């Protein structure tokens, strides 16, 4: 198994080269697969060795991408420990090969497949999204993944499907943070069906054009960019379509502080942290905080989902 920490820095594509590559869409697949082959020869890198070529995203806001180093060393992933550096230090213990995801529940055609099969079924594409943590910091991340709605359409949700429940993995021998009952493992999250079907919602299998690092939720994770980061559950094993609103892990842990919706909202404060502003990771020591935007800046795309809802009540 490849140890994430031990990949020499020279094998990680620096951002400026990454950005250059973005200009050569046609060559990209080739570059990636050949570099992936040379880097990971004789080792098994989970279910996914490299990413096939994909359509690249436009950086609409023209925001500076957070560096790969920061994205992969500053994580909240309590399965590996509660400090920000724990996931980077311990996630390599997790075996992600073999790995299967089952899509089940109120569906006409349930599916069970691995990540390779999944991205053959649905073409991957790149999405550059802001990620806003409930703790008041944010990043800009070039994810690679598939739109969740494409997958959900394949399983034909029945009329009873009102919500989508996501379940991660419970394996304390490899996820050493699970040796403490810090949270009710396995980590569970949920979306309303219309949120899950929204075109912005993706299942990510990569970032910065490469296979998703384990500390970021390999082999497959959810990304819902207008919600606080904890909604974007990592290492998904099960996607279940259900009739009743699922109870998420953080709701169970503290329902006064964490609601089901968890939409980024500068006007509804968390009891611990102000949500009015955020610190952008990777900016200089002297950079000011940024004003947090409603729905993390995706208001135009998603506000209609919550029309008429009291967002201070349904937080």
């Amino acid at each position: 198994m490849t140890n994430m920490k031990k990949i020499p820095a020279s094998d990680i594509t620096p951002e400026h080269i990454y950005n250059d590559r973005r200009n050569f869409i046609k060559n990209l697949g080739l570059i990636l697969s050949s570099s992936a082959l040379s880097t990971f020869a004789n080792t098994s890198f989970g279910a996914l060795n490299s990413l096939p070529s994909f359509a690249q995203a436009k950086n609409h806001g023209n925001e500076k991408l957070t560096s790969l180093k920061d994205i992969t060393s500053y994580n909240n992933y309590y399965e590996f420990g509660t400090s920000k550096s724990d996931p980077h230090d311990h996630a390599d213990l997790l075996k992600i090969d073999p790995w299967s995801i089952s899509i089940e529940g109120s569906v006409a055609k349930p599916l069970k497949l691995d990540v390779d099969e999944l991205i053959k079924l649905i073409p991957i594409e790149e999405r550059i999204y802001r990620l806003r943590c409930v703790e008041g910091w944010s990043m800009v991340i070039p994810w690679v993944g598939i739109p969740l709605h494409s997958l959900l359409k394949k399983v034909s949700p029945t009329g009873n499907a009102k919500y989508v429940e996501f379940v991660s993995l419970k394996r304390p021998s490899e996820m050493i943070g699970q040796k403490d009952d810090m949270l009710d493992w396995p980590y569970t999250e949920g979306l309303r069906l219309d949120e899950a079907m929204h075109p912005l919602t993706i299942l990510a299998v990569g970032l910065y054009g490469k296979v998703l690092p384990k500390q970021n939720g390999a082999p497959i994770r959810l990304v819902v960019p207008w919600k606080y980061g904890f909604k974007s559950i990592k290492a998904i094993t099960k996607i279940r379509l259900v009739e009743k609103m699922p109870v998420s892990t953080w709701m169970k842990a503290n329902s006064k502080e964490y609601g089901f919706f968890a939409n980024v909202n500068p006007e509804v404060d968390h009891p611990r942290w102000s949500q009015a502003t955020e610190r952008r990771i990777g900016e200089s020591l002297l950079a000011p905080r940024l004003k947090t935007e409603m729905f993390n800046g995706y208001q135009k795309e998603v506000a209609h989902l919550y029309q008429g809802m009291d967002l201070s009540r349904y937080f």
Partner: protein
Amino acid sequence: MNQSYVKRLIFIASLWPILSLGIAIFQSNLGANPVEFIERHFGKWALIFLCLTLSMTPLRKITNISEWILYRRMLGLFVFFYASIHLLCYIGLDYQFAWVDIKNDIIKHRYVLVGFLAWLLLLPLAITSSDKMMRRLKVNWKRLHRLSYVIAILGVLHFIWLVKKDLTEPLIYAVIVLILLILRLNIFNRKKINH
């Protein structure tokens, strides 16, 4: 050992938080969120020095060596020093002197509020720390400086309420402060006298 020599040693050792931060900056070891790193660094050291300061009286009792008390004032001033840097980092680095945002943060979030209160209570203690003030205030000086117990409790609460889920680290400080406060209870003093 010469007391003033020990004092000087303690003073130099007490500058370690500054030096260790300097080393971390020099090695670019502040991580992805350097502002948070620096803020927490000084917050933590303020708490550590608070525990050290409150340890001097119990140490005197336990060891029957009175010298401990000679270092208490300096350690206490280091509490004020590091708590002030911690606060300055919050106001200047984190919030860039955006006073309205800072005011809202203090009002709305209990962990910020108790932290700020703790710093406010440190102010009169720092101001009255000189020999002159000690003489002038007489019995009241001792009463006033019992505020340090309140400050310790507020400081620990500040840490507990900040943390999202993993209370291990703040609870370690809570237990230390609790022990240091219990050691001051009269029962212990009477026992000592009865012996």
